[in-house]
C-alpha cells in the first residue's frame, strides 16, 4: 500500500510500521480476542494511507487500554472511561490528526457511558473501537454492562439481574453516524470495517466482539457469525435510520442466544461531523489551532486589545 506521508513524499507503508520493533510484547492471555483488534487495526491503517505519526490512539483502562502499547503510533493511555473526552479534544486541537479511541465494554459502556453518549450526539470525527468481551477482564472477571442477564460472577454470584446494554441501539439513538459490529474471529470483515470507520467523517462506533478465554469461558467464538450485508436473509438499507434501528434491535435480542450478526448497521455520510458544524458557526478556526504555536508569523491577540469595553 502506498501513501503520502506528512511531507508529501510517496512511500510504501505496511503493517510492520505499526508494530513496535522492541518491547513490549502483549500481555494479553493466549487466545484473547484483543489480538484480533490489534491485528485488524495494523492492517487497516496502511490501507487508509496513514503513517504512524499521523495517528493518535487514545485508550482507557483494562486489557483494551493496552492496545496502543503494542501499536506503534502516537498514543495516549488515559484513565478508566475517559478516552473519548481526551480524543475529542485532541481532534479539535489538531483536526489533521487521525484520532482513534479504544476501550472495553466496562470502560466505554460503563464508567465512560456519559462521554460515549455525548460524543455520539455531537458526532465528533473520531473512530471509537470498543472491545466487547462482556466481562471485566483485568479486574478478574466481574459482570460488565454487556454481560448477559443471569451471568454469574464474583460480584453477581446468583446470576446478574441486569438486562445487558444495547450498544448499537444506544449509539444510534445518541447520534453516531457510523455504527458497525465485528468480531475478532472474523478477521477479514474486521479489517474492512475498521478501515471504513477510520475513513468515515463523523463518529464511527465499532462494537468489536472479543472473546475472553480466561474469565468468560462462555465466549461465543465458535457460534456462527453472519455478515448482515452479505446474507440475503437480512436485506436492509444501512443508510435508513429506521431499518438500521430494527436490525439492531433484532440483533441485540438474539445476541446471547447463539446467532451473532455482524457488519455495518448504520452509515450516514450526509451528516456533517461536529468539527464541520463547529467551524460553520465560527467556533473552530480553519487552520489547526495547534499549528499556530509553530507559526512565526502568527499574530497573537493581546488582552490589551480587549480592554476597550471596560474603559
Amino acid at each position, binding site marked *: 500500500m502506498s501513501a503520502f506521508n506528512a511531507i508529501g513524499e510517496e512511500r510504501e507503508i505496511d503493517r510492520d510500521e505499526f508494530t513496535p520493533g522492541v518491547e513490549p510484547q502483549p500481555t494479553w492471555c493466549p487466545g484473547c480476542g484483543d489480538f484480533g483488534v490489534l491485528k485488524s487495526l495494523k492492517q487497516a491503517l496502511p490501507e487508509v494511507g496513514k503513517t504512524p505519526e499521523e495517528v493518535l490512539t487514545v485508550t482507557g483502562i483494562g486489557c483494551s487500554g493496552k492496545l496502543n502499547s503494542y501499536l506503534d503510533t502516537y498514543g495516549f493511555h488515559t484513565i478508566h472511561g475517559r478516552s473519548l473526552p481526551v480524543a475529542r*479534544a485532541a481532534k479539535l486541537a489538531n483536526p489533521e490528526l487521525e484520532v482513534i479511541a479504544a476501550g472495553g465494554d466496562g470502560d466505554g459502556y460503563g464508567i465512560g457511558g456519559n462521554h460515549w*453518549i455525548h460524543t455520539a450526539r455531537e458526532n465528533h470525527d473520531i473512530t471509537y473501537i470498543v472491545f466487547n468481551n462482556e466481562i471485566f477482564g483485568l479486574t478478574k472477571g466481574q459482570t460488565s454492562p454487556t454481560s448477559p442477564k443471569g451471568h454469574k460472577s464474583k460480584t453477581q454470584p446468583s446470576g446478574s439481574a441486569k438486562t445487558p446494554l444495547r450498544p448499537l441501539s444506544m449509539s444510534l439513538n445518541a447520534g453516531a453516524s457510523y455504527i458497525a459490529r465485528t468480531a475478532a474471529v472474523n478477521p477479514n470483515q474486521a479489517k474492512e470495517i475498521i478501515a471504513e470507520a477510520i475513513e468515515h467523517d463523523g463518529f464511527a462506533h465499532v462494537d468489536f466482539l472479543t472473546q475472553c478465554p480466561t474469565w468468560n469461558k462462555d465466549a461465543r467464538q465458535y457460534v456462527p457469525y453472519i455478515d448482515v450485508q452479505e446474507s440475503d436473509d437480512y436485506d436492509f438499507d444501512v443508510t435508513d435510520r429506521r431499518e438500521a434501528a430494527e436490525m439492531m434491535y433484532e440483533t441485540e435480542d438474539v445476541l446471547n442466544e447463539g446467532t451473532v450478526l455482524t457488519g455495518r448497521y448504520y452509515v450516514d455520510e450526509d451528516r456533517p461531523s461536529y468539527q464541520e458544524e463547529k467551524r460553520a458557526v465560527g467556533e473552530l478556526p480553519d487552520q489547526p489551532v495547534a499549528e*499556530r*504555536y509553530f507559526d512565526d508569523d502568527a499574530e497573537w491577540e*493581546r488582552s*490589551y486589545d480587549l480592554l476597550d469595553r*471596560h*474603559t
Partner: protein
Amino acid sequence: MSDDELIWRIAGGSGDGIDSTSQNFAKALMRSGLDVFTHRHYPSRIRGGHTYVEIRAAGHEVQSRGDGYNFLLSLGDSFARNPQEEAYYGNEEIKPLSENLDDLREGGIIVYDEGLISEEDVADLDLEERAEENNWHVFPMDLRGLAKEHGREVMRNTAGVGVTAALLDMELDHIEDLMSDAMSGDVLESNLEILHEAYETTKAEYEFEHDLRAPEGSHETEQALLSGSNAIAYGAIDGGCRFISGYPMTPWTDVFTILTQNFPDIGGVSEQVEDEIAAAALAVGASHAGVKAMSGSSGGGFALMSEPLGLAEMTETPLVLVESMRAGPSTGMPTKPEQGDLEFVLYTSQGDSSRVVFAPGNIEEAYEQTRLAFDIAWEYQIPTIIIYDQKLSGENTNVDVEFFDREPEPGLGATLTEEELKEAAHDASGKFERFGYDDNEKNVSKRSLPGQKGGRYLATGNEHSPVGHISEDPDNRVYQMTRRIEKLDSIREELDEERPSNQTYFGEEDAEYGIITWGSSQGAVVEAVQRLNESGHSVKGLSVSDMMPFAEQEVTEFLESVDEAMVVEMNATAQFRGLIQKELGRFGDKMTSLLKYNGNPFEPAEIVEGYEVNLADEDREPTAQVRIEPAAGD
C-alpha cells in the same frame, strides 16, 4: 473610616437589573476620576430575593468593600409581587429596604421607591425614628411611576441613578455616555428622559441637608473596570491559552463565558461538555495535542476533576485549572464566598501527586499569576491551579490599562520542534524517549506533539519507561517519581530567584505584629493594617499567593520578624494556618486565627477589631461574625 468616600448600595430583587445598573454607575464614577471597588451580594435564585451591589468610590485607593455604606438606593423587589395572587412569593417587596438598614452609616442617605414599597410597610419599620436617631436623610421617590410613564417600569433603575446623581451633586455626562454605549433608539431615548426627569425633580423638590457629595479625584493614566474573572480570562489569553472546556457552575462560569465569548475573534476553541471529568479530560487532550488549554470549576465540579488532574501530572501534560471557591461542604452556599477549598485543591488526586497552586489576592495578581500559571505549566509540564473565590471573581475595581499592555506569551515551553526531535534520543524501534534519563534540565524532559515526525511515544497514566511503555521496573519508578516530585523544587528555585515575588507586603517593615492572609481577603487586610498603624499600633501584613510550592522562605522571614501574628482567612478550620505549620514545621505558638465563614467577606473594621481583641490584648469579645482560633498552647 474616611468621610471622603461614597459607598453606594443599590438593592432590589435578582433580575431587577441591579448588576448592570451598578456596573454602569461604577464605570461612571471611575470615569469621573475616582477609584472604585464593587461588592456583589446575591441569592441562589434567578428572579426575586434580596440582592444588592455596593460601590465604594473615593479620591484615594480603595481595596475592599469598606465598612457599611452611606447611600442606600432601595428599589423594591418587583418579583415579590405575585401576578397569580397566590401566596407563593410572600410579600417581600419591602426587603430591599428593611434588610439594608443595619449597616447604614450615621448621616447616610436613603432613597426608596415608594412606587413599590408601600407607606404601611415603611411605617412598620419605624423608619422615621431610626432616621432621627442616626441622622439619616430619607427620600421616598416614585421611581416606578416615573419609569412607567416614560417607558417600562424596569427603567426605575435609571430613575434611581438620576436621583442619586442629583443628591450627590454629580454631573450626568458620564452616565449619559455609558447609556449611549449600551443602548440605542427608543430605549435610549426613554432612559435619558427618565434620567433627566428624576434628576431635575429631585433638585427641584428637595433641599439637601446632607453633607454627602460625590468625592473628587483624578486618574493620571487610563483606567479600566475589571472583575477578577476578567483578569483571569485576560491573563489566560496573554498566557497563550486557546482552548477552554468546562461545565457551568457558579462562580467559575464567569471565566468560562468571558473566554468563550472572546475566542471566536482570536482563534481559540471553547467546549461546553457533559461533566467536569470530561471538561478537565478535554483540556488534557487538547494540551497533549499542542494547544495551551485550560479548564476549571468551583468546589463541587473540581471534585470530579481530580482524576484528569492526576493523569496530567503522571503524563506530564501541561494544564491550567482554575478553582473558584464558594462556601461548602457539598453544594454549600452557591453564591457566597469562602476560602474553604485550599486543602482540597492542594492534595486532591491519588498518590504522591503534586501541582502548582497560586492564590491571587487582587485583580492585578489574578492577571499576572494566570499568565505565570501558563508559563510554569508549559515550562515544567505540570498542572497549575489558580485558586480564588466568589468574592474576587465578582468584584470590579479600576486598574491601569497600561498594566495590560504587554506582549502575550504563546510559547509552548519545553516542547521540541521537528528539527530538535531529530537530535533527541530514540530507542531501537525509533520511538522518542519522551521521559528519558538524559535530558532532564530542571527535572523536565522535553516533549513532542502528536503529528510531529520522529516524536512517536506513548503517554500513559501508568508508571512508564522513557518511551512511555507501562513499566514496573523499580529503578525506573524511582527515577521517574523523583523527577516528577522534584519539579516543585525547581519551580520554587525559579520563583525565588528569577521571578518577581508573588507575595504582597504592606504596613511598616519593622512592625512588632504581623497579619498574614491569602487570596481575596487581602484588600480588607491591607486597609485594616493601614488603620491600625494610623491609630498607633505597629503592624505589618503579608498576603501569600504561592501555596504549592509554598513561599517557604518569605513566610519564614516574615514570621521570624514579628512577635506574634494573626492569620486572616474565610473558613472555619484555619486551613491556611495549617498549611504554614505543615510547610514550616514551626510557628504554631506564634499564630492565632481570625476566621469568618458566614458567607460575607471580611470588612476591614472586623479585622481591626479582631486584632485589638487578639493581639493588643484588649479585654473584650469580638462583636462581629468572626471566630478567633487561639495559637497552640494558648
